């Protein structure tokens, strides 16, 4: 049995408190009116006045020609700045939720594939998925708050915007608040139901003499994977693609999945290495870590493949209604947009190529931290350009949101770990997994 160390518990509370304070600060420091933004913009112009930047010249031109445009610009900036703490929170909420969800998918795949090696890691995976109901409720609350117009993340939720936008009007059969919330509820419920059912079965299997629970788990995992294949795609359209309601890409759902699964496997590896370091997983050997690291390596390349496929095809055909998506990202987010390729592809590709390195815990931890950072940036670049545009920066709101959700994630995951034994001893492949050697 694992005992949740008081040190780690304190850390998770500390993260939550610091994160909460930072998030609150982020919300409190947003400008309260368009007038404030005008003052702010004016101040920043004055500050840069002597430098006579190109940006300033254009704004001044606007100012001299039409006061109306200044108002429009100020209003746009106002909305972006208002959105910023919300978006920062949303990125963090989605990021940890997707880790948990994709862990569940990975877990189901291992059951359905009757894999022999990862059985000793099942309890770690189950603990990571314990965050799923918590994260699901938080996300759902977030969506309800968004639909109550507390923020402007999903512009299609704003009747005023829709009234002037024919493209969104045509999509309103799908993009409307009640249907959106019902869909979100269905996805989250479906995922959580499988998670709890699987957990129940695997615990029951520990004390049973026949394989009925195992067989049920096998079948329900296959059924879950079908449900997941469909709902994951739709979730990505709903929760992320609809932030840019004019843009569409058929690959998007699978691309999001690639980002999810690689982050999830990395998290499984990191938690396992932590627990092993504390002496709780003596049955996990470096061959198990080697396999996880191979998956991190392989799915990093897979993510890049899908990233490139989507980017290149849109860049190549250069059709105006699609290219805007990458144009904003390339123009306003150049460093994160291109930087994540280094973090998500180049670095893991070079580091995790070597077979010996993949057995060294600290190597996996280094690569894992970079991969997780990279995929946070990936989600950031998916969400932020649509909600805050060029008003982004990586500040207190962003860091605090991550800390807040990270603290919660650690608390939930490690509490779940401490509830049951760390070895799923009833699984028929457990002995194969304990003896696993590659």
């Amino acid at each position: 049995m694992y005992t949740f160390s008081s040190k780690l518990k304190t850390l998770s509370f500390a993260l939550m408190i610091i994160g909460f304070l930072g998030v609150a600060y982020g919300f409190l420091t947003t400008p309260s009116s368009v007038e404030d933004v005008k003052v702010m913009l004016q101040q920043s112009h004055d500050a840069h006045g002597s430098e006579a930047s190109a940006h300033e010249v254009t704004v001044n031109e606007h100012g001299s020609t039409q006061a109306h445009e200044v108002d429009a610009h100020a209003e746009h900036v106002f909305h972006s700045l208002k959105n910023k703490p919300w978006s920062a929170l949303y990125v963090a909420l989605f990021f940890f939720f997707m880790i948990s969800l994709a862990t569940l998918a990975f877990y189901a795949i291992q059951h359905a594939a009757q894999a022999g090696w990862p059985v000793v890691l099942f309890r770690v995976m189950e603990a990571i998925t314990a965050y799923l109901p918590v994260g699901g409720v938080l996300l759902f609350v977030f969506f309800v708050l968004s639909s109550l117009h507390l923020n402007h993340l999903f512009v299609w939720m704003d009747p005023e915007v829709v009234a002037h936008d024919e493209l969104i009007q045509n999509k309103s059969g799908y993009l409307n608040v009640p249907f959106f919330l019902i869909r979100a509820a269905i996805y989250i419920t479906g995922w959580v139901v499988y998670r709890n059912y699987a957990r129940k079965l695997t615990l029951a299997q520990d004390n049973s003499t026949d394989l009925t629970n195992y067989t049920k788990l096998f079948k329900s995992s296959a059924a879950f994977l079908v449900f997941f294949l469909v709902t994951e795609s739709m979730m990505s359209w709903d929760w992320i693609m609809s932030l840019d309601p004019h843009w569409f890409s058929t690959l998007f759902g699978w691309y999001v999945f690639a980002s999810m699964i690689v982050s999830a496997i990395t998290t499984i590896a990191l938690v396992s290495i932590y627990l092993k370091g504390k002496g709780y997983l003596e049955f996990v050997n470096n061959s198990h870590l080697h396999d996880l690291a191979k998956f991190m390596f392989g799915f990093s390349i897979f993510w890049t493949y899908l990233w490139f496929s989507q980017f290149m095809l849109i860049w190549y055909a250069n059709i105006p209604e699609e290219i805007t998506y990458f144009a904003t990202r390339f123009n306003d987010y150049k460093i994160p947009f291109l930087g994540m390729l280094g973090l998500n592809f180049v670095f893991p590709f070079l580091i995790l190529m070597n077979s010996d390195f993949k057995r060294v815990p600290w190597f996996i931890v280094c690569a894992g931290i970079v991969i997780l950072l990279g995929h946070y940036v990936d989600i950031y670049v998916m969400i932020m350009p649509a909600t805050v545009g060029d008003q982004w920066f990586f500040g207190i709101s962003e860091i605090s949101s991550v800390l807040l959700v990270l603290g919660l994630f650690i608390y939930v995951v490690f509490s779940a770990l401490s509830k049951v034994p760390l070895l799923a001893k009833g699984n028929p492949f457990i002995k194969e997994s304990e003896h696993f050697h590659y």
Partner: protein
Amino acid sequence: MSSHYEAPIRRPLIDGDKSYHDITVEVAAPVEGKANKLWWTAFAIALTAFLWGLGSIIYTIGTGIGVWGLNKTVGWAWDITNFVWWVGIGHAGTLISAVLLLFRQKWRMGINRSAEAMTIFSVVQAGLFPVIHMGRVWNAHFVLPIPNQFGTLWTNFNSPLLWDVFAISTYLSVSLVFWWTGLLPDFAMLRDRAVKPFQKKIYSLLSFGWSGRAKDWQRFEEVSLVLAGLATPLVLSVHTIVSFDFATSVIPGWHTTIFPPYFVAGAVFSGFAMVNTLLIIMRKVSNLEAYITLQHIELMNIVIMITGSIVGCAYITELFIAWYSGVEYEQYAFLNRATGPYWWAYLLMMSCNVFSPQFMWSKKLRQSITFSFIISIVVNVGMWFERFVIIVTSLHRDYLPSSWTMFSPTFVDIGIYVGTIGFFFVLFLLYARTFPVIAQAEVKSILKSSGENYKKLRDRNHE
């Protein structure tokens, strides 16, 4: 690999009470024996089809592409449909030998040799089409970036058709090398067993002096693993590049980002179906039922079911996004597929690809050899129509209604397609008589862990 212990609930992969020697004898039997009447009949039919196709090709080149059913609007039809279809079929071989190796799937060992042979032979068929569909075949070498007398006139590296050249040629060469290295120990086995001097000579040449020393085996394993690691991204990239032929365009129905992974999934889907078709016959006629067991067929059916579902998910995604996009051309492209003049092709594609693999959820059906055989053919019909639908229905009605037209193939189009099927079977039938169709060296490596007799022995010891 965990070779010391295997969970009792895993089913055996080699049926019956086999020894190493039994495996050798049974794998070598078709090569050492004489062809029967059935083989000669099949060979004669395949050869006739091949010659008919050859005639059609010569006629096309001699007379001009105009003998095909293409027109000014539909410039690609059967030629590229067949090309993509054959490339797709070829993917299963690499998938089985490379991806399943990476995933340590022992069941691949009974089928990988034939699956790879299928890859090679179908990529050869595929490779014909990019050449013969050219208006000026004799200038085909201009696609290669070779310094020349035209002031080093160069190729434009921006075209997916040029990427195709690199993709297909690399794919064929790597697959060939991968296949051949795997064959070395097996050729050596045939060499050592040969009694006639001619056969001895031939298999000595083919086996490159393999003597099976520890060092050789160690390097052999490492090379296999490295090649598998390289072949996996290769197999994904090759069909991805094939999909780029369409997806980089601006044609509604073609320009969509899901094509790369979806074409790959479709390729695996059709490829496994073809492997199933071939192996269900082969296990029977070559008496290899102990090595290509019902479990192998069932597992292939499961792969067909999974990839079929992925393809189905992609179809629905395309339909949804076409509606969601609000682009009327895109919406019309899909409306036209479903309700236009080629509705029957679309319906065939949907029913063969989306619905038929779903039957495999039933254990009874996926364990039925007859049913698997029928579905494996249905899938390949469906996948042919998938490519046909994507190519033709997107082309025959696009932006300008004044360019709308129809397409119907001529006997030459059909003749060439039939010819490639004939050529494929000529090669495959020759292969089945002269090559060790099961990787006996690999199968021997799992005999003691997964052989039925050894499993029973272990179970008894446990009790």
